[in-house]
């Protein structure tokens, strides 16, 4: 335990020695773990396929961007805006869930997908007639997170160590990640977590056991959405710039691939899946590109294409050979390999 803590504390400095880019990549990877854990509540625990999850991330990001940037010249502190981002995302989750959660799984998937697109289209177009989101140009110069006098955006030196912006965000993200992990683990084994599991396994039976399925599903949606909102707010502060382009459908599918790869419903598996799908494409970006240059003299397959192919293949291959994920939870494995008839 202490070893892991030390490793986590030293890691950003080791990465910074290789290049600050890698600290940024790690930070984004942690954000994706947060997102995957949030989506895991909806898809993994409650068994509801949400294909528009990135919309909640977008809502959180835009709430932060609007309330802490020169856009409206409002500069609220992060401890007010981040919870607000979570709350607004949560409200969106309930608004989406209330009319649609009674639908069967695959329909729900499409409706959530449509919702994600609607949110993106609005973000893209709400620059007229009143400029709210600044349209496709996005919002820039977003305030970094400030704790007291300490700004996470700038570089500080302490005890001979250089703490650059990304390194400070790294520590913040690790703290948030720990909190989210604790909440998730506690949630899974709570009454609520067991209710979700029951719904996922057999909704009719769950209802017969006295579970208010509608309320529980809505709760899963709302909680998943809030986690997305928190991740979005931090993303917004960390990047300093957001635009609707960061919240396209493909992002939702990326998060879904991470959850599927790690094993739906398995917290540690999902976290590992998110890490894997965040880092492997980056590693490939730095190896495959130059390798192709060396071998063929030009780039035959762009790294970005390889990245997307990885996501696609992860979904297809996992469903075919290991539907319960690389690191399956025991219950989920039983459930996903049980062969039932189509009808």
């Amino acid at each position: 335990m202490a070893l892991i803590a030390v490793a986590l504390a030293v890691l950003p400095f080791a990465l910074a020695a290789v290049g600050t880019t890698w600290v940024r990549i790690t930070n984004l990877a942690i954000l994706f773990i947060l997102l995957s854990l949030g989506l895991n509540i909806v898809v993994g625990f409650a068994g509801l396929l949400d294909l528009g999850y990135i919309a909640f991330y977008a809502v959180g990001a835009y709430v932060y961007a609007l309330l802490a940037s020169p856009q409206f010249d409002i500069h609220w502190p992060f401890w007010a805006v981040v919870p607000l981002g979570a709350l607004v995302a949560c409200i969106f989750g309930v608004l989406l869930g209330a009319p649609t959660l009674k639908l069967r799984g695959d329909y729900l998937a499409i409706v959530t997908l449509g919702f994600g697109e609607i949110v993106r289209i609005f973000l893209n177009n709400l620059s007229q007639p009143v400029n709210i989101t600044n349209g496709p140009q996005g919002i820039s110069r977003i305030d970094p997170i400030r704790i007291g006098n300490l700004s996470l955006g700038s570089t500080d030196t302490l005890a001979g160590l250089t703490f650059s912006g990304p390194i400070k965000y790294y520590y913040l993200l690790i703290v948030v990640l720990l909190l989210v992990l604790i909440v998730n683990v506690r949630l899974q084994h709570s009454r609520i977590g067991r209710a979700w599991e029951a719904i996922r396994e057999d909704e009719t039976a769950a209802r017969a056991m006295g579970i208010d399925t509608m309320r529980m599903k809505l709760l899963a949606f709302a909680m998943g959405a809030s986690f997305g909102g928190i991740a979005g707010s931090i993303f917004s502060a960390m990047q300093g710039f957001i635009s609707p382009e960061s919240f396209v459908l493909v992002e939702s599918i990326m998060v879904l691939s991470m959850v599927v790869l790690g094993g739906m419903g398995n917290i540690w598996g999902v976290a590992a899946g998110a890490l894997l799908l965040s880092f492997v494409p980056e590693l490939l970006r730095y190896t495959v590109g130059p390798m192709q240059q060396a071998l063929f003299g030009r780039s035959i397959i762009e790294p970005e294409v390889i990245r997307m192919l990885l996501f696609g293949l992860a979904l297809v291959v996992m469903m075919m050979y290991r539907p319960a994920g690389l690191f399956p939870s025991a219950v989920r494995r039983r459930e996903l390999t049980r062969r039932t008839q189509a009808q």
Partner: protein
Amino acid sequence: MVFFGAACVETFIQQLINGLTLGAVYAMVALGYTMVYGIIQLINFAHGEVVMIGAMVSFSVIGALVAAHTGLPAWAIVFAAAAAAIPVCMAVSYLTERIAYRPLRGAPRLAPLITAIGISIILQQIGLMIWSRNPLAFPQILDNRVFHVAGATVTSVQLAIWIVSILMMTGLAAMVYRTRLGIAMRATSQNPQVAGLMGIDIDRIIAATFIIGAALAAIAGVMVGTYYGIAHYTMGSLLGLKAFCAAVLGGIGNIPGAMLGGIVLGVVEALGAGYIGDLTNNWFGSNYQDVFAFIVLILVLVFRPSGLLGERVADRV
């Protein structure tokens, strides 16, 4: 106000004509979704990508034939493009069914759906690798003759789209309701187990369903390409989603429903985009066009999940 007077009627008719054209394309694509859903209860996410591949193949063929100066008339070139796109799309669709969906038959419902999303991403990237990441402009070969109807204009391409889609849909209906294959398809969609007991080779029927849907998608791809004059590797996803919305609107699994749903959705979209500015005092403009399909979808699923013509109850939880 735009709502009154002769100008209003003309605008209305014009939007209606545009909507019907769009609707014909949606209907062609929606048929693929609805047939597959009817038979194996799978939302075939990759179907939109099949349309994209159809458009891309036709782009290549048209480009090659124009560059070769064959002297062929324009309609023959487009016909050749469709003739090339159809088998390619059929092959793509058959392969995805064979490789990705068939091993998952009998698995929980979410499994093939997730696979379908993966296939859709993979097909998009293949499209990108073959045809570049930039939008491709179709060569303007069809002379767009314009006809005037009640103050509005109809182009020859629009007329061609209507005629071809009516022919295809009539042909499909005849096949589904008149031939042995059609009977087998309907039997399989009603009850695969019993159909199997009656000596129907279910795997073959399912493959046939995918192939027929792909042929319609290929033609839809050619239509979209020549109508808008542009093709892009991501064009399939939004088109596919809207077509799926159309299939749900008509009643998923219901073939006449998909045709009706496609037409209605196309008209709703065109009229919506045309009038939203006036209705909302220019608060919202036609750039919200893409929202209508999803709003229609949500409304249908909430208030009438069985769709306009569907008899199946959609929410069997």
